[in-house]
């Protein structure tokens, strides 16, 4: 479990509180003075629910899957993991219950949250789906790692053995929808969360397809240079192909795009962004993630347990601000709700 909270100013922003700070403090039952000015994700959730006048005990059990955001790009190193982990911690700090699924055998999302897959016992999503499709027993509660207290941020971690998934997916029917069926079969478990975030590998294979086919809209993370734009061609044909194959079943996968790595003095960034907006005006997120050193400092090489998202490590940086803005817009874009309550 990670011990993370934000200070008063951000806490007020996340709760959406406009009154005075002393009024704000009365929303919380803080014991002692130790965490006096630190607000956890759970604190913020409870404060929001309190302000909304919602009786926590009376909240109905959800029976539908929450929105799924799959960070995807048919190219490596575009910032998928950075954005996925970043918006996960931001959404959690806004008070939403977040489940992250590391869908990449490189396990970089797992690493971003300080977990060393080489030394930990990990049950990854591939193993869970395999057991599900073979009708063997599996435990989701054991597979899930709590990161922020109160089920505010959980992770299904990955390790290198996730690469084996394609070899058994190859042999089963309806493999594109095996992940979707796995979620549906465990709707009681997954509906505890307000949003599910998936970090994907850069390759295009059966696992990345299956992870996409459970979504309505993938989040394409584009690094602002020519190489990365070229990969849009691969992504477009991948998505078009899935839509072609399954539209008769009522399936349609949409794409939402976020631009990453903008630097005002690099002209290729501007050219790339011009091309993106000219090509996909109605699909672009308005927030542009800047090229910022804070992102590069997220992962500690020799003290892995100290790694963390920009929001955790430098909450007042430009990088963290961009991630917060992006996460806010995604609440609207994906219709993320607080325990089923739509907050406007």
């Amino acid at each position, binding site marked *: 479990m990670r011990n993370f909270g934000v200070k008063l100013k951000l806490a007020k922003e996340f709760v959406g509180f406009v009154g005075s700070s002393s009024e704000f403090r009365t929303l919380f039952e803080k014991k002692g003075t130790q965490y006096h000015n630190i607000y956890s994700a759970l604190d913020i959730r409870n404060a929001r629910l309190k302000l909304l006048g919602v009786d926590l005990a009376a909240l109905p059990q959800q029976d539908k899957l929450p929105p799924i955001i799959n960070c995807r790009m048919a190219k490596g190193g575009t910032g998928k993991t950075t954005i996925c982990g970043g918006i996960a911690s931001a959404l959690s700090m806004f008070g939403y219950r977040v489940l992250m699924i590391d869908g990449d055998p490189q396990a970089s999302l797992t690493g971003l949250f300080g977990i060393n897959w080489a030394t930990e016992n990990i049950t990854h999503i591939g193993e869970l789906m395999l057991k599900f499709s073979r009708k063997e027993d599996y435990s989701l509660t054991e597979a899930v790692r709590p990161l922020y207290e109160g089920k505010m941020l959980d992770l299904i971690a990955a390790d290198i053995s996730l690469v084996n998934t394609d070899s058994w997916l190859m042999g089963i029917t309806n493999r594109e929808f095996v992940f979707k069926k796995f979620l549906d079969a465990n709707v009681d478990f997954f509906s505890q969360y307000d949003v599910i975030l998936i970090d994907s590998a850069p390759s295009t294979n059966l696992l990345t397809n299956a992870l996409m086919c459970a979504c309505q809209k993938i989040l394409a993370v584009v690094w602002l240079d020519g190489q990365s*734009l070229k990969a*849009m*061609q691969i992504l*477009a*044909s991948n*998505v*078009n192909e899935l*839509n*072609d194959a399954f*539209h008769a079943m009522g399936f*349609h996968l*949409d*794409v939402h795009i976020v*631009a990453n790595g*903008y630097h*005002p003095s690099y002209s290729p960034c*501007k050219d790339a*962004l*011009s*091309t*993106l*907006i*000219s*090509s*996909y*005006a109605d*699909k*672009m*997120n*308005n*927030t*542009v993630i*800047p090229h910022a050193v804070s992102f590069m400092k997220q992962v500690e090489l020799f003290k892995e347990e100290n790694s963390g998202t920009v929001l955790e490590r430098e909450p*007042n940086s*430009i990088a963290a*601000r*961009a991630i917060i*803005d992006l996460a806010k817009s995604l609440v609207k874009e994906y219709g993320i709700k607080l325990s089923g309550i739509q907050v406007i």
Partner: protein
Amino acid sequence: MKKPITVSGLVQSGVIQNNLNSTLPQFKSQSDFSNQIAIFLPLAQIQPNPYQPRSIFPDAELNELAASITEIGLIQPIAVRKVSDMAYQIIAGERRFRAFKLLSKTEIPCVLFTATDEDMAVMAIAENVSRQDLSDYEIAKSIRTVESLFPSRTRLAQALGFQREDMYRYFAYEALPLFLLEKLEMNPRLLSRNAAADIKRVLNKMSAEQSEIALSALTEAIALLEAAQIDQTKIASFIATRVTQATQAETATLNIQKQHFFLQDKKIGHFLSSEKGLEVKISAGVLTDEKTTELKKILDDFFRV
């Protein structure tokens, strides 16, 4: 703190452009696939395709279709286009539409398409041509009615996916004599487009004198055809044979006759007709090269008919 970077901000300040010409590959939107979603439209707002060549829908057939619709429902929605507020035209599915009327239903599932007049014509014809239960004559008539929508017959053939050659076979009907067209109106299956094209070709070959014989031969042939005593593919050769026979009979009555040609009272040649054949002889040096060529050409044209 610095202001956050946004797409709209960068466009507004002119740092990036949002109207470049060269763009990236597009993601197909749902509507690229989903014009298959059916809506219910009141039957009263739906009219037949004005280019529909099929005018007769046998009752038995419609009753059968209606019965099957009652039992298992309509499997395929009909295709319509919107022509004005609350008015739609059938692109495909008039039989289904009529069967629904027969069942006194008020609404029918439709798939909306956008279609120009040209499209409407092409779709109506293409649907019927491939169904094979429409006669060539009816197809030919419907092609004629839509012809004016297209700049040329070649374009028309392209739009319908016909070979040019085949297209002209359909147009052959219009060269047939009136009495035959009247018969075709009553019985469109009487002549296929191939038979019509053959008849047109043989009639065109006839000289003015021969055409009368040809016409009566055609009348005779059609009577035989109606009595199922001749195959429609044989009509053209039937006419040709009759005309040749009549011409030969005429020549036989000429007997042996010799006629001399004179140039300034001097014999320079003759024309001889006997059972052996015709002979024309002209002395050497009488005709200039030019005249010789002209004569050859006349004879040549004569036999070409």
